[in-house]
């Protein structure tokens, strides 16, 4: 009961204080708002990148073409070497015999059939292949090189750059936005600390009296913590609205995919609420962090 009373008093006071120093509070709130918008954008971006890279990863296959004159023994050796590599799914290495490939091609088109129907194993220009899946698409280039260096492997082909390039670009964007977010968070925490500092200064007498009449330290500090928290919560309102409505609009505008059908966007349903929750949490943490800093520094008990 007593705790509850003190708590409700603190919440009321923190709101009062936010509005009493409105211009100052506004600076902090705007800063949190901007920070959280950037956080939101970069979070939506990187979660989507993660999502579609993992989707693409499932599809990207390295095809290793073997020399035409290879023996069965040598083929086994190539297989053994492939499965010792790091970045491959070991039970997903598939051998495809050239005669099987011919059959498939002949089945798919009459033209192929007329050309290929008389080819014997020895004559066929088609090569045996291994189809290999990687676990980390970022390393696909290196893995392909390693496979190419295996004896009796002739040529290696895979998703051909486009996917790789796209992943690289998004990765850079993600890293840059993380850097921006971190610096923005620092600036915000500093601004909040400053706001709280001013509040502490302006309530010096109140604090003095509280100490004098025997309010406990936690009781004296709590209102300022709550003020930071309140700033954080108010500052996260606009970013949350933007996240929910903005992402839904974006998703609908692009019909759930970006540029090509390969890049599927995450469905907004629960995703936007998850992001919103994280934004609120970050706002609260930054607010608390800023006020703890100010209280530590300026509210000597």
């Amino acid at each position, binding site marked *: *009961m007593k*705790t509850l*009373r003190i708590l409700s008093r603190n919440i009321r006071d923190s709101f009062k204080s936010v509005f009493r120093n409105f211009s100052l509070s506004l600076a902090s709130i705007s800063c949190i708002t901007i920070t959280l918008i950037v956080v939101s954008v970069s979070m939506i971006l990187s979660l989507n990148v993660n999502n579609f890279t993992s989707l693409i990863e499932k599809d990207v296959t390295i095809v290793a073409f073997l020399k035409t004159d290879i023996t069965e023994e040598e083929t086994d050796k190539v297989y053994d070497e492939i499965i010792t590599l790091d970045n491959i799914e070991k039970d997903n290495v598939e051998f495809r015999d050239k005669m099987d490939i011919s059959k498939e091609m002949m089945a798919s088109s009459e033209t192929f059939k007329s050309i290929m129907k008389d080819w014997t194993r020895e004559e066929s220009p088609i090569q045996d292949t291994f189809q290999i899946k990687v676990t980390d698409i970022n390393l696909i280039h290196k893995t392909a090189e390693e496979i190419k260096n295996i004896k009796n492997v002739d040529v290696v082909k895979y998703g051909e750059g486009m996917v790789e390039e796209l992943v690289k670009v998004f990765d850079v964007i993600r890293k840059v936005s993380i850097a921006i977010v971190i610096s923005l968070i620092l600036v915000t925490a500093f601004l909040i600390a400053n706001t709280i500092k001013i509040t502490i200064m302006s309530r010096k007498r109140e604090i*003095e*009296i509280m100490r004098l*009449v*025997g*309010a*406990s*330290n936690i009781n004296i500090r709590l209102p300022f913590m709550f003020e930071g928290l309140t700033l954080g919560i108010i500052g996260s309102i606009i970013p949350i609205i933007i996240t929910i409505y903005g992402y839904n609009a974006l998703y609908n505008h692009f019909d759930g995919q970006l540029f090509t059908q390969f890049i599927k966007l995450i469905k907004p349903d629960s995703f936007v609420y998850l992001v919103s929750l994280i934004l609120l949490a970050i706002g609260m943490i930054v607010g608390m962090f800023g006020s703890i800093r100010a209280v530590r520094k300026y509210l000597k008990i």
Partner: protein
Amino acid sequence: MDIIRMKNVKKTYKTGTTAIYDLDLNIKKGEFVFVIGSTGCGKSTLIKMLYREEKPTSGKILVGGIDVGKIRNGKVYKLRRKIGVVFQNYQLLQNSTAYENVAFALEVLGLPKSEVHPKVMKVLDLVGLKNKAKQYPNHLSGGEQQRVAIARAIVNGPKILICDEPTGNLDPKTSMEIMEVLEAINKLGTTIIMVTHDIEIVEKLKKRVVLLDSGRIVKDYKEGEYKK
């Protein structure tokens, strides 16, 4: 029974100034003690150590059984709840009414409104300000403001009331009115320690008087002994 015991107390500030030297002082429960002496002789330092605004450099101070020199910062509030403090400049919240100023002292301790109200009205009555409860400090005279401050200091029922020159800003007549309030509080059982410059008051009230000079007690007059 002594409610305050000071033994071999010394206080040297960080600046190197020693404000109190080897001071011994015992005060009984229910006593009214004046602390007098010239400016800078260490009166404020002496009482600040009682409510742990300052820590003694050496020696022992017991206030209501609490070893003041030993309590940790986080526990100081327990000592403060046993002590009321009044200053020369009242220290009121200007944006709060007389009532709110007094109630503040209870609200920050988490008392419910139902308990706050009767206690506040009772002390406002005791200091004679029941009909000015809704006034803001800048609409009250100096004497009235000091009475609000006194009401705030005693609303939580402290055992000890410490006053640092409470009549310093008041004219003689108003000062006497304040002294009447303090005497009434003392009669109800609260121990009072009052620092003052006002020799007239000290002589008139005939209480115990501790005379300080350069950080030492040079004279401890029993009730009625002190003469100008």
